[in-house]
């Protein structure tokens, strides 16, 4: 008998991360670690005004500072036709302002110097003649007649309205509301937040004037798409552009777009013949790069007296800032917000959305979120909670009564999504059991009798991720399909080249595990390469929880493609026909004779040393995956809080999270993703927000005011799972990076609102600062 085969650490194994070996030694290679010979440093001058005409930019003094090599202005960029660039939503955005500035922090000029300190010195000497204009800081004001026109340079743009978008069936929804016993409504603002990875954005642009070779090291979550955008914007031949994303210190959506700094640094490198480095300061990151959310939402739910949900009506107003720069599929103006029917069997729904320009930073990136799913999930879960109170039902019962049932999948939602699979009742029941729901209800009642406020908040989210099928999903026309290339070396080791780019999600480990599962090569024997457009297949990048659904699928498929050839090679080695070869975990058997076996290593060696006549040598493949559908991760979160009614302070006592993301490739990494998502969900509920004063000054321009919780404020998390594989993914996985950020904010807010039920508080908009909680109590009490 052959020796017991070694366990292949494929899917389902908590393999320790391969990438950690460099990080724990301080040997990561982040953007600011890149140093090239002759490299210059760039600093950007930004507008102190939210809206002002530029009458002139005098750079003469700055140019005279020793060490300053060049000062770039909007006029200089305009001479090269680079003063404006396209956004990911097909709008335009100023690279360096020429006519006027439209938000505080907008890029006005750049200094290139041989030392970053000198570049900062010179910035202070640039004299800009601004003529302040009236400022628009809310989308409501933006749409009023007579509001100052922000995009006066745009042909055909006579007001600040950007788009109107609808989804669902208005007539059917109106009918549902007409038949309802009860209608519950909620107005809420999902505040402007910012992904704020601990590493800011930056680049090192290196243009070789002699050869035209343009290498841009860049903190990019989507290097291939960026390469194409650069080719289109700058008219550069795409084969000469190489985008290289080194190790990335967190992205969360912030590193998807093209920012003016990248364009200016590249232009400067081209003009000066030196590499140019630009590293954002934190303030620049907070005031000018991709913000998230900022939706003013109105939701209404129609219900029968017994709690049966009949319809959902939503209208929302999006504050898009000065340039419409949402990073999302072009067909959907508010991303995948129309998943707003959530986990419920809602027969009718209608969503309408409008977008407006304001004098704020552009962005509209999905901060750890699949294209506005977060706002949708928050709205429905807050509405359902309030509906339960209105009907006098337990919030868990109302949810259980209306969940889509397991036998209804695949389920077509009222706004047209085809939900792949789910067991919402299972996730909810597990969460209720783990949190001890019934006991908590008793404790809550007893506490209320003593004047203490305990709240239990639930949220049962359904996410939609993995964009997407080519028919519906593209960004700037680029279909959202992704590739994987796999090469098996003669010694049976392998290299996997993928189109997506890790920012901490552990791709170098999990994607190796997918290959391990499919081919039986241990993950430590598989190198995963990513982030370098010259050396990886095309794809749209890592965001919207799409790596596992798209690139993970491509990886499984390319491994299967390689396996088909491996079976042919095994048949040759075993001297049987291909039909007589069976495969199991890296071993190829003769049917009925399991001791006649060749390993994947034997086969790989043969692919280069002993292959049959007529067969190509080598063992490799490439696969571009076009998802047949999106995937729909789901779960239930239960949060327990205590509120001090006297001060408005609240403390989280428990967070129980049940996640179902389908098949888990590396459970350790999946749990880590959920921890991170829960922490960011808590942060959004409790403290993160970017606000503006009436002059359009950004409040929240440093981490003193943009609050990110530390370990001290962040609650402990208890994580659990159910597993409902996706039938629309080759390994049944659904994606998990963002579930907890999508699902948890509503659970935290619902918990606080639940605690405040005896005081009559119906809603508090995030973030739930103690001041806001106290003020809501005062308002409710005063109105009583």
């Amino acid at each position: 008998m052959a020796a017991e085969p070694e366990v292949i650490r494929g899917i389902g194994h908590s393999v320790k991360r391969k990438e950690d070996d460099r990080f724990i030694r301080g040997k990561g290679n982040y953007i600011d670690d890149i140093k090239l010979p002759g490299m210059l440093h760039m600093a950007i001058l930004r507008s102190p005004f939210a809206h002002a005409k530029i009458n002139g930019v005098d750079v003469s003094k700055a140019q005279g500072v020793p060490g300053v090599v060049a000062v770039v202005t909007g006029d200089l960029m305009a001479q090269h036709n680079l003063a404006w660039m396209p956004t990911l939503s097909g709008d335009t955005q100023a690279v360096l302002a020429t006519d006027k500035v439209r938000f505080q922090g907008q890029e006005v000029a750049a200094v290139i110097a041989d030392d970053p300190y000198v570049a900062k010195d010179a910035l202070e000497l640039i004299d800009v003649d601004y003529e302040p204009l009236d400022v628009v800081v809310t989308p409501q004001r933006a749409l009023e007649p007579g509001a100052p026109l922000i995009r006066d340079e745009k042909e055909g743009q006579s007001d600040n309205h950007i788009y109107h978008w609808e989804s669902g069936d208005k007539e059917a929804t109106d009918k549902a509301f007409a038949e309802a016993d009860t209608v519950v409504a909620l107005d809420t603002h999902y505040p402007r937040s910012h992904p704020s990875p601990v590493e800011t954005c930056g680049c090192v642009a290196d243009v070789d004037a002699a050869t035209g070779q343009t290498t841009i090291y860049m903190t990019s979550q989507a290097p291939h798409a960026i390469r194409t955008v650069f080719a289109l914007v700058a008219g550069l031949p795409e084969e000469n552009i190489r985008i290289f994303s080194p190790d990335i210190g967190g992205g969360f959506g912030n590193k998807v777009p093209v920012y003016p700094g990248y364009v200016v640094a590249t232009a400067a490198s081209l003009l000066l013949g030196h590499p140019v480095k630009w590293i954002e300061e934190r303030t620049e990151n907070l005031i000018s790069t991709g913000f998230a959310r900022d939706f003013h939402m109105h939701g209404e739910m129609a219900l029968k007296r017994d709690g049966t949900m009949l319809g959902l009506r939503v209208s929302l107003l999006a504050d898009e800032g000065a340039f419409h720069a949402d990073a999302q599929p072009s067909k959907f103006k508010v991303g995948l917000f129309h998943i707003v029917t959530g986990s419920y069997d809602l027969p009718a729904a209608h969503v309408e959305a409008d977008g407006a320009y304001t004098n704020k930073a552009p962005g509209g990136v999905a901060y750890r979120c699949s294209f506005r799913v977060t706002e949708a999930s928050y709205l429905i879960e807050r509405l359902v909670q309030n509906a339960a109170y209105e009907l006098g039902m337990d919030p868990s019962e109302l949810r259980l009564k209306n969940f889509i049932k397991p036998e209804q999948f695949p389920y077509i939602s009222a706004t047209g999504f085809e939900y792949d699979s789910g067991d919402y009742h299972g996730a909810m029941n597990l969460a209720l059991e783990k949190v001890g729901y019934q006991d908590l209800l008793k404790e809550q009642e007893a506490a209320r009798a003593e004047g203490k406020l305990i709240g239990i908040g639930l949220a049962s989210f359904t996410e939609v991720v993995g964009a997407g099928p080519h028919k519906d999903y593209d960004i700037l026309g680029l279909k959202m399909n992704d590739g994987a290339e796999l090469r098996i070396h003669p010694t049976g080791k392998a290299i996997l080249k993928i189109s997506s780019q890790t920012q901490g999600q552990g791709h170098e480990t999990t994607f190796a595990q997918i290959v391990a599962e499919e081919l039986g090569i241990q993950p430590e024997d598989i190198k995963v390469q990513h982030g370098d457009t010259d050396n990886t297949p095309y794809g749209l990048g890592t965001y919207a929880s799409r790596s596992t659904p798209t690139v993970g699928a491509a990886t499984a498929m390319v491994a299967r493609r390689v396996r088909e050839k491996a079976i042919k090679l095994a048949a040759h080695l075993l001297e049987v026909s291909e039909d007589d070869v069976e495969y199991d975990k890296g071993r190829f058997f003769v049917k009925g004779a399991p001791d006649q076996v060749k390993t994947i290593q034997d086969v790989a060696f043969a692919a280069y040393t002993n292959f049959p006549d007529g067969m190509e040598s080598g063992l490799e493949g490439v696969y571009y995956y076009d998802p047949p559908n999106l995937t729909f991760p789901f779960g239930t979160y239960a949060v327990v809080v205590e509120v001090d009614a006297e001060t408005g302070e609240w403390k989280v006592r428990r967070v129980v999270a049940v996640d179902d993301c389908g098949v888990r490739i590396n459970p350790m990494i999946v749990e880590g993703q959920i921890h991170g998502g829960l922490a960011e969900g808590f942060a959004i509920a409790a403290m993160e927000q970017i606000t503006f004063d009436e002059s359009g000054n950004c409040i929240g321009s440093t981490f003193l005011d943009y609050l990110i919780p530390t370990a001290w404020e962040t609650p402990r998390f208890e994580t659990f799972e159910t597993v409902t594989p996706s039938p629309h993914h080759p390994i049944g996985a659904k994606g998990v990076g963002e579930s907890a950020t999508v699902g948890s904010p509503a659970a935290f807010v619902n918990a606080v609102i639940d605690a405040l039920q005896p005081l009559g508080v119906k809603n508090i908009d995030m973030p739930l600062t103690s001041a806001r909680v106290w003020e809501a109590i005062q308002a409710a009490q005063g109105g009583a």
Partner: protein
Amino acid sequence: MLPASFEYHRASSLEEALDLLSTFGEGAKVLAGGQSLIPLMKLRFASPEHLVDVNHIAGLDGIAEADGVLRIGSLVRHNALAASDVIGARYPTIAAAAPQVADPIVRNLGTIGGSLAHADPAGDLGSVMLALGASVVLRSTRGERTLPMSEFLVDTFETAISADEILTEIRVPAPSARAGGTYLKLERKVGDFATVGVAVYLVLSNGTIERAGIGLTGVGLKNIEPEQAEAALAGAEPTEERFAEAARLAAEASHPASDVRGSAEYKRHMVDIYVRRGLSTAFDSARAA
């Protein structure tokens, strides 16, 4: 964020530092922990021509109680303050406040003297020292003077210190046997400035309040000592009603501004609640002393 150029001077003695300050006048700044000054320089809100580094001057980092006075050297780091045995045993107001200043890493460098001289109305220690009736020692080549905290703190980021002076020591009257106190801080997260901070100090004598000290953080242009609230307590019976009355007076003495941390109304309300709660805690600790 990168600072402008300056000349760096490392003083090895107090005399050397004072000479440097006397020479450079307004163009010089004292560099102690640097945790407030360096961020200001990086933002280029401050661009001094000369920095006089006092970190290497011996004898400015002591904590000792003698002859009814606690002397704290101005270079004592916040974490040293928090770890001090004598402070832990006898100065609960300081002991409660020190670990709430900034964050644990910043506290390794930030100094008590720097914190007081920075005079941020949202700074915690100014309120503590007001409540305790502390004074500061200022030295220059011209001599030495001692100022009570109430006179030292002048306005937002403004103290009575002259450009050629160094704050060398903080003097806190030692408590009698039955004294207690605490510091309550409402902050949005670790490392945040106080939305509202309240320092309280109570000295009991024969069942009545001999002296009460209160300092308020973040609710005015500087740290505030609500004298009427203190007066309402002095000589009175320590009852819940009396504490509530003092809290009400303290809230009246505050004049906070509305901002992202909360409305003026909320902050004033929080002064009321925290003074009441703080006095209760201080009373319990005084009784246990």
